[in-house]
């Protein structure tokens, strides 16, 4: 039985705690009485994933067995999540590959000739051929790429269709091939409760027109939190869109979940609590710290981004989307939930080198905000770990560093938009449409490997709630100019940051450190 997550109080004997620091690591001593929240240990993975997949497809939830849905002459589309999940990318074979191979075997047996496989990118960047190959495996890639295995293009007017409006007036668009199929099978990987369900189709195979219905400041401010779908306006909107999609096309969902075994043995100290570190872990930490302190960023990035996570499959469910997603959420919560008592004045965390939008690229300042104040801050259920008006402290070098291929619109967003204002609402009103409709960004999204012109806005909106909720956000170790441009305060050391925070929350504040990654979900009571 895997050890559950824990909240540990810092006393004199507590070792210093690990902070991720971009493409680096730090050990920090927290004041006595602070709390450290540790994620649960990885659950035991399913021993025979292939058998579990066969079983799930043979006995789906609230739906007919997949075999009975496949017939000769039908138009079949398989859609799957892109490389933004899981993080870090999974060591081969990816669970999506295992599921898709099984589905394709069944389709071949049934004689389905018209089959297409679409990477459901939404407005994410196009993956390189090698990245697609990594997800689907050699066999699928060599059989289908590039004419039957390709990536969704949310800006192709000929390949997307408008489906209609929900009762709330949200427009719904869908990839044309998917809309015209007799059956769409969606293969998903749910890493956190935010993923999966109706959101998969409603964002992955949609256009800007459909996605803007819920990726906006109003909806994201109304989501408490994104990681708890019942309380998330974002998810309610996706559900409404998803229901309309299901009225248009028959969808069969397959959702997989993995444990939180995020780091390979080389970096196993990142996976362990500091009290469990062996001399080898300490040596590994020291080696990594020294190397990352002196190595140039590109070198460090190559090392970090080449890491593959040895995730293990913990559940696979197939069938009707709501029934399937409920099971997936249970499995995810079972892996990542940690009960935490009460809120706190200050929350600290280290922002790691990787987020969903910078695979094989540096984490630019806008993505640091998205990751720290967007995703990591929102890893809670019920209410935030931070009290209203408290101080959020995160560590990251926050360099002025952008990947010109993947993030061209982020550069303009940082230089032009953030120079004007950091207020999400104002940004949305003044700038979003111009960036989204910019022909050059559109061209780069369609033909190169660039995120959509609207994407930096969404990254910023993810953090809108944290920015509104927190009294202050302090970045430790970041470049001062960059941090100020983001609208935050800069501190050199954690001690300085805590002192600065006291000016906002008062003397003797309560402090909680979230030791992520590996990912966890704070169940705040």
């Amino acid at each position, binding site marked *: 039985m895997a050890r559950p997550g824990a909240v540990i109080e810092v006393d004199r004997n507590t070792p210093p705690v690990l902070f991720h620091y971009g493409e680096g690591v730090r050990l920090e001593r927290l004041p006595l009485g602070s709390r450290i929240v540790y994620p649960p240990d990885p659950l035991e993975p399913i021993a025979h994933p292939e058998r579990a997949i066969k079983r799930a497809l043979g006995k789906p939830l609230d739906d007919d067995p997949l075999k009975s849905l496949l017939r000769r002459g039908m138009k079949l589309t398989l859609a799957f999540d892109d490389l933004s999940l899981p993080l870090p990318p999974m060591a081969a074979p990816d669970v999506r590959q295992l599921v898709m191979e099984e589905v*394709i*075997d069944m389709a*071949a047996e049934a*004689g389905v*000739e018209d*089959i297409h496989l679409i990477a459901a990118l939404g407005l994410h960047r196009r993956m390189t051929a090698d990245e697609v190959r990594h997800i689907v495996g050699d*066999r699928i890639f*060599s*059989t*289908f790429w590039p*004419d*039957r295995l390709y990536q969704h293009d949310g800006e192709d007017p000929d390949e997307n269709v408008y489906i209609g409006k929900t009762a709330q007036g949200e427009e719904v668009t869908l990839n044309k091939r998917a809309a015209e199929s007799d059956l769409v099978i969606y293969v998903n990987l749910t890493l956190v409760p935010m993923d999966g369900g109706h959101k998969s189709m409603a964002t992955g195979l949609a256009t800007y027109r459909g996605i803007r219905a819920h990726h906006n400041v109003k909806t994201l401010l109304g989501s408490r939190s994104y990681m708890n779908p019942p309380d998330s306006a974002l998810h309610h909107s996706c559900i409404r869109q998803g229901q309309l999609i299901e009225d248009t096309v028959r969808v069969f969902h397959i959702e997989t979940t993995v444990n939180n075994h995020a780091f390979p043995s080389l970096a196993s100290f990142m996976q362990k609590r500091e009290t469990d570190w062996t001399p080898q872990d300490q040596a590994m930490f020291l080696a990594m710290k020294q190397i990352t302190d002196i190595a140039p960023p590109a070198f460090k990035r190559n090392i970090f981004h080449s890491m593959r996570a040895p995730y293990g499959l913990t559940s696979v469910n197939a069938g009707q989307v709501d029934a399937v997603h409920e099971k997936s959420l249970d499995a995810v919560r079972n892996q990542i939930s940690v009960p935490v008592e009460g809120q706190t004045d200050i929350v600290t965390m280290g922002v790691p080198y990787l987020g969903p939008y910078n695979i094989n690229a540096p984490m630019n300042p806008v993505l640091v905000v998205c990751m720290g104040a967007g995703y990591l801050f929102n890893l809670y259920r019920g209410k935030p770990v931070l009290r209203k008006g408290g101080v959020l402290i995160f560590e990251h070098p926050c360099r002025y560093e952008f990947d010109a291929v993947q993030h061209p619109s982020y550069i303009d967003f940082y230089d032009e938009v953030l120079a004007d204002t950091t207020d999400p609402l104002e940004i949305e009103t003044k700038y979003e449409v111009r960036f989204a409709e910019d022909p050059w960004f559109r061209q780069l999204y369609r033909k190169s490997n660039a995120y959509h012109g609207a994407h930096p806005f969404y990254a910023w909106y993810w953090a809108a709630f944290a920015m509104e909720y927190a009294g202050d956000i302090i970045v430790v170790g970041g470049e001062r100019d960059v941090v100020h441009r983001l609208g935050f305060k800069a501190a050199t050391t954690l001690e300085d940051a805590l002192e600065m925070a006291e000016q906002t929350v008062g003397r003797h504040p309560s402090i909680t450190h979230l030791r992520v990654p590996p990912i966890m979900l704070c169940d705040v009571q």
Partner: protein
Amino acid sequence: MTAKPWYSGERGVTQLAAAVGSLVEDVRRVRRAWHWDTPRPHTWPERGSVVPAPASDLGWARQEPVRTIRYLIQQGLLLPFTEAMSHPKVEGREWVKELDRPVIFAANHSSHADTSLILHALTDTARDRTVVAAAADYWFKRPLMGNIVSLFLNTFPFSRTGGAQGQLHASSTLLKSGWNLVLFPEGSRSQDGRIHEFKPGVGHLANETRTPVVPVHIRGAQRIMPKGQKLPLPAAARVRIGKPMTPKPGEGSREFTGRVEKAVRTLAETPKSEELQGTWIERWRASKPRELVYGED
């Protein structure tokens, strides 16, 4: 009367000069009289045994430890070099992934780089069981070079000038022994990059041994190393592999060769041809990993 030797003391220096002159003349005549690098005149009688030793003499190249040495050479040198020089794009690899029985790879030929590109496109298992037919009158003219090439590429001498039966005997023996065979049915490298007429040997072999023929089209090899160039240059290449073909009942060697030639030409032109490259279902089944069958004790 025989001439006295130069060291007899009579006509000393003059006779020495005459002897040297005669030697030089003999050497020059011998050197100019044989033209091994030009085609043999068709009016000449059939040559007895071809220049190289028969295929069986190169059996050492297909035995251990030479196979292991070749594997190491290919993994350490040939394949990385091919990858670095041309980053070949391979289409239809599934057809050669899990070969149940030997096949003949019939490819167009425009460069020495063709062989390494084909070997690069194969899986380790298939490559280990593949021999390459190399022109006897070119590669095996000098025994040392022939042996080195055999060590690197597992070649065997394939006569371009002898009679059909004699030429094909060694090849069919190899096929029957379980070896895949790489053949370039055009017979020689194309000067202009165009595909030339296929010689009927490939059809004859396939008919005789009932071996499937895998049509292969290589594009870009000519830019890497065109005929007459000594050193390779980096250039992109593509290897397109078609579905294995077998002679239809009653189909003659020439007809079948014509069909193979047409397949290679179509592969060159058409990006996707279900007839030649198979439907996705056929390709998917072809790429299914072989399941290990354990015997019952």
